[in-house]
């Protein structure tokens, strides 16, 4: 199908499905000039905050981490400098540049309201935005988008993946997109399938969403083609580096568009480092390197839009303060999160540090939480996406009144 044909077809599809995707685009195309973009990266598996952002200045840190403890900046295998007390893992070179450029804020000793140690419930709480696992079937980000529709977008958000994670499920129109190695359908077959789905609410909406996302991807000319070719060029089992590059290129492709979604979400995995986690080098270091270079690619691909972008990196909980018997770490509580991007008022570590002494540890084993993740999220959503505070309290983060929004995370 040619691009023009696809566009025309998309019109029909969208209308046929009752999803007024294109009409909303027309209505909002010139309505607002605010162009804030948000990328949320979920680090599934519980990122070790004490390795990603080592508190090398804490007197108890080295003994807890023993042979995998990261040393002070300047020493062999040392951390990258942040503020004289915290450092960054030596793999996070791009992130440290961002810190120096005041485009990275590190949040530490932070936790969601979840206090048990199941990945799957922890991720559920992280995404559903309530204090209880499985109490809501929608995600806080979707509800925030529903409360503060963004101008110019056919869909409010896009999940880079085949399916939409809980975080992005809910009433606001979102889509998912992932590169396809398969051939696009011819117009006639697509029209017949659209017709066949007309009586099926779920499938008709999903098909319309998919075609809208494909159209955005196809519209991008040179860059869009690059996004596709990277995808199809990556053969079986792409390394983490290639996988991140593929995803962030696609994310940037959507976010660059004036009429595209302004919020993108994707997942990363492999953070569950129970054994042989490594220190300055090793398993976790490799994963952090891939993440760091993915972020660098994201900045590059976003171009000028980077200045309007905030990227949030969050994980479900942290890991034990001490290493375990297999040179790894088990499930813990508080951890670190990151806000990065041109829109971020960075160059700061925000942490009310509880210390790592035996007495200070949560239940005698984990970094104690002193910052509620929801305070950060509320500040971010209010200041970056103009989500009304009423909605933040009522629908986005129910039961969170104790967590006051943390303002000032972004440039005025």
């Amino acid at each position: 199908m040619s691009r023009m044909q696809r566009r025309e077809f998309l019109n029909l599809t969208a209308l046929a499905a009752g999803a007024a995707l294109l009409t909303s685009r027309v209505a909002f195309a010139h309505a607002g000039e605010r162009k804030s973009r948000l990328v949320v990266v979920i680090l599934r598996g519980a990122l070790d905050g004490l390795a990603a952002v080592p508190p090398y200045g804490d007197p108890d840190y080295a003994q807890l981490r023993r042979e995998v403890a990261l040393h002070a900046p300047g020493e062999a295998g040392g951390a990258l400098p942040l503020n004289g007390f915290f450092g960054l893992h030596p793999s996070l070179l791009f992130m440290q540049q961002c810190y120096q450029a005041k485009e990275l804020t590190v949040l530490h000793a932070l936790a969601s309201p979840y206090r048990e140690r199941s990945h799957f419930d922890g991720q559920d709480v992280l995404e559903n935005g309530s204090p209880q696992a499985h109490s809501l079937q929608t995600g806080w980000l979707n509800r925030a988008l529903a409360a503060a529709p963004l101008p110019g977008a056919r869909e409010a958000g896009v999940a880079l993946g085949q399916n939409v994670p809980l975080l992005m499920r809910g009433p606001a129109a979102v889509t998912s997109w992932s590169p396809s190695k398969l051939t696009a359908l011819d117009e006639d077959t697509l029209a017949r399938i659209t017709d066949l789905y007309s009586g099926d609410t779920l499938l008709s909406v999903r098909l319309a969403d998919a075609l809208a996302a494909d159209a955005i991807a196809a519209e991008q000319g040179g860059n869009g083609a690059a996004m596709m070719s990277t995808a199809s060029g990556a053969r079986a089992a792409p390394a983490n580096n290639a996988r991140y590059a593929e995803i962030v290129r696609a994310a940037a492709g959507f976010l660059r568009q004036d009429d595209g979604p302004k919020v993108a979400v994707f997942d990363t995995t492999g953070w569950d480092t129970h054994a042989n986690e490594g220190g300055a080098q090793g398993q976790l270091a490799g994963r952090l390197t891939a993440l760091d270079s993915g972020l660098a690619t994201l900045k590059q691909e976003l171009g000028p839009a980077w200045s309007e972008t905030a990227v949030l990196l969050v994980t479900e909980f942290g890991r034990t303060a001490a290493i375990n018997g297999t040179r790894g770490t088990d499930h813990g509580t508080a951890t670190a999160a990151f806000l990065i991007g041109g829109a971020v008022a960075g160059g700061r570590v925000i942490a009310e540090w509880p210390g790592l002494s035996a007495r200070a540890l949560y239940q005698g084993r984990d970094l104690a939480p002193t910052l509620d993740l929801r305070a950060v999220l509320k500040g971010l959503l209010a200041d970056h996406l103009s989500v009304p505070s009423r909605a933040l309290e009522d629908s986005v983060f129910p039961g969170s009144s104790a967590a006051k929004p943390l303002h000032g995370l972004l440039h005025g």
Partner: protein
Amino acid sequence: MQQALTSAIAANRFGLGARPGELASIGGDARDWLLAQLKGGPPALADTSLRSSQQILASALDLRREIQAAKKAADEGAQNGVLQKIPQLLKPIYVSEVTARLSAAVASERPFVERLTQFWANHFAVSIDKQFLAGLAGSFEREAIRPHVLGNFTDLLLAVESHPAMLLYLDNHLSVGPHSQLAERVERFQTERKIGINENLAREILELHTLGVGGGYTQTDVTTFAEVITGWSIGGEGGRFASGEPGTFVFRPELHEPGSKVVLGRSYADEGFGQGVAVLRDLARQRSTAHFIATKLARHFIADEPPPALVEHVADVFAHSGGDLPRVYRALIESREAWAQPLAKYKTPSDYIISSFRGLAVEPEGHAPLLPFELLGQRTWQPGSPAGWPDRSADWDGASALIKRIQWADAVGERLGSQRDAAELAPQLLGANLSDATRTAVSRAASAAQALTLLLAAPEFMRR
């Protein structure tokens, strides 16, 4: 209930999708068709050339020793050469295992048993993104899961938790009791390196394999249970772990945390290996376990949010029968709810691919079987986490996932359209679930290829 409807539900929901002729062969009572499949031992895979976990793991451990030797000798050339050898060993094993598993699923005349095998393999999930697991996931399923799916849950649990693949996947093979003989020896000579437990397997047994996350255990139970199963290890590893038959389960008394221990309020005397077995036996009998397993089975076979009364009933049967699995399955089949709502479940990509292969009677061959699973987002044995693949519609019904299914259906249509008659197949695959809209669309298609694509893309073929 209409006979045609029950047979369509039996073949698509409890089975793996109808093969041509299957619906007609189901006969008068679809329940009987399912129950008959539970009789006799579980079928083994047809491919008898597949190697055992022991053989595979022993070879992999040999290669790892070669790598370590090359590292020690600081011989970079040799190192790079040997590093390649592990994937060279494991990848072809993975391909053969996936092919054998898919062939069984596609050809089986007891598809309910194949689905149950897949269900349990996902309940006790391992993932090939961990070292060696690409080579072991298939043999793990053949050795620890498949032989027990028509047996007792306790036997299944014991086979799984003592299998080298699970011990490796959840890091238990190197977990050491803090007061074990080994730890005490190390303490005397070494101060820097810490030695102790790894609680990964213990936690996931409680959370994912038995009680479930709200099942009434504490962090102390997790830690203590981890101590209970210290010593559950694998033979033929390096250094201190070299002894024992390479690639098999080995209990290492010198790693085991000594003493009696309290788990879930009950005290267990120290019998070495027997202590862990005793805890597992009790876990299998906990009411939380019955409830958790019943919930997962009902979610898999009946609805994303299964009716609580049904879950309680199935849990009762599980508890009263002491985990007799065929009786539990029978309770599901005999429930009214199982037959009340056709097409309540959205197919996973794996369901979708297997039902397509079955419906079109395609023989999986060579490397081809891997590709559709990769394209549609569900690589076999790679759920990426010990929780396994999720089992609700919202986890699989994304826009991008749907368009890929349709594109794949289109490619299948192109390839097989000229050899299959979609209009004739439609009622054979979908039976009473076949809608007028699909029947009409298939019969009016512009080509045989398009007709087949429309059949595979039909809303009722997306669900089971």
